[in-house]
């Protein structure tokens, strides 16, 4: 594995694992929501890192040097990083915001019902 993106991939993996640990160990509902948010961010970092090629630039063609053929506007594929993971992560970030908002809304309702944020007090939802 000599791609030059090990640091970013490893960071993404560690953030995902911290998120999982938070979700499994913490008992405060808000901290569990933060854990899910960390899993989300770590996954996004991991996906973007997997599309990264050292020495290449962002997939924005604003310079004639990045064209393979000036007349037909063909882009030189050796100059830019992979844009597909970036497009997928753009989607994932927005969905993450929506899901986090929904989770926080549930936390507010649960707190209003049980007057506590301790997940152990909501025993009726145990499987």
């Amino acid at each position, binding site marked *: *594995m000599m*791609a030059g*993106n090990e640091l970013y*991939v490893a960071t993404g*993996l560690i953030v*995902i*694992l911290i998120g*999982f*640990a938070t979700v*499994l*160990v913490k008992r405060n509902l808000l901290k569990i929501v933060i854990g899910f948010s960390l899993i989300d961010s770590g996954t996004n970092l991991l996906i973007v890192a*997997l*599309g*990264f*090629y050292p020495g290449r630039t*962002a*997939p*924005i*063609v*604003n310079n004639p040097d990045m*064209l*393979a053929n000036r007349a*037909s*506007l*063909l*882009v030189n*594929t050796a100059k*830019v990083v*992979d*844009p*597909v993971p*970036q*497009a997928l992560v*753009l*989607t994932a*970030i*927005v*969905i993450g*915001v*929506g*899901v986090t*908002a*929904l989770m*926080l*809304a*549930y936390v*507010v*309702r649960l*707190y*209003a019902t049980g007057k506590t944020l301790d997940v152990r007090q909501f025993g009726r939802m145990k499987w």
Partner: protein
Amino acid sequence: MKQIISIIAIVTIGFVLWQLVPIAMPSGFGAVTHHYVADGLKDNGGSNLVTSIVVNYRGFDTLGEVTVLFLSVSGAAFVLRRRSGLEVQEPVPASEIVQTGARMLFAPIVVFGAYIFVHGHLTPGGGFQGGAVIASGVLLLLLANRDRALPHGLLSWVESLSGFGFVLAGLAGLIVAGSFLANKGVLPLGQWNRLVSAGVIPIIYILIGLKVGSELSVLLDVMVHAAGDEEAN
């Protein structure tokens, strides 16, 4: 006992992910990516290849994404619609400096958000980012003055009409060029690296920016006013 199970689960997840990473490591572009990168500028006329993927090649996916965001905001608003009846401290009013500063900064923030989504096909930016910037301006207003009432009717009209416009742009592609959300042939692609270029992509991204901005503003408003008396609303 629970701690042991948690540690085993985390170690297992970490090990599996670590084993999966080398398989997903980049080894050059696949056929689809190669097409997106090499022909993206020729097909769509937009300098930002990520935008040309998000709005054109995977435009249908983005329509679904906008729908998911709408549904999650609706869900949060539904859950928080009834006042929770929580006892909250009487909020301390923001100082004069904060209130004046928020009023002064609101217009530049909205203009900056609009700048970001208008240039979505040229620079790193786009409808989702610009919409989030506009919503942050609204959040500033709400933090300065909790009782400020947002124009809910206007926001829901902007949100509905921009979603409708997105579908109309897609249908225009279906009628003119033969496939849903097609770009080539619907509008002229224009000159490379100019503001007015890339066919329908800037139009769709402006609509997405308005939709995301109004949705997130409504979400913030609902969340700020979630606590309060049972009988209000």
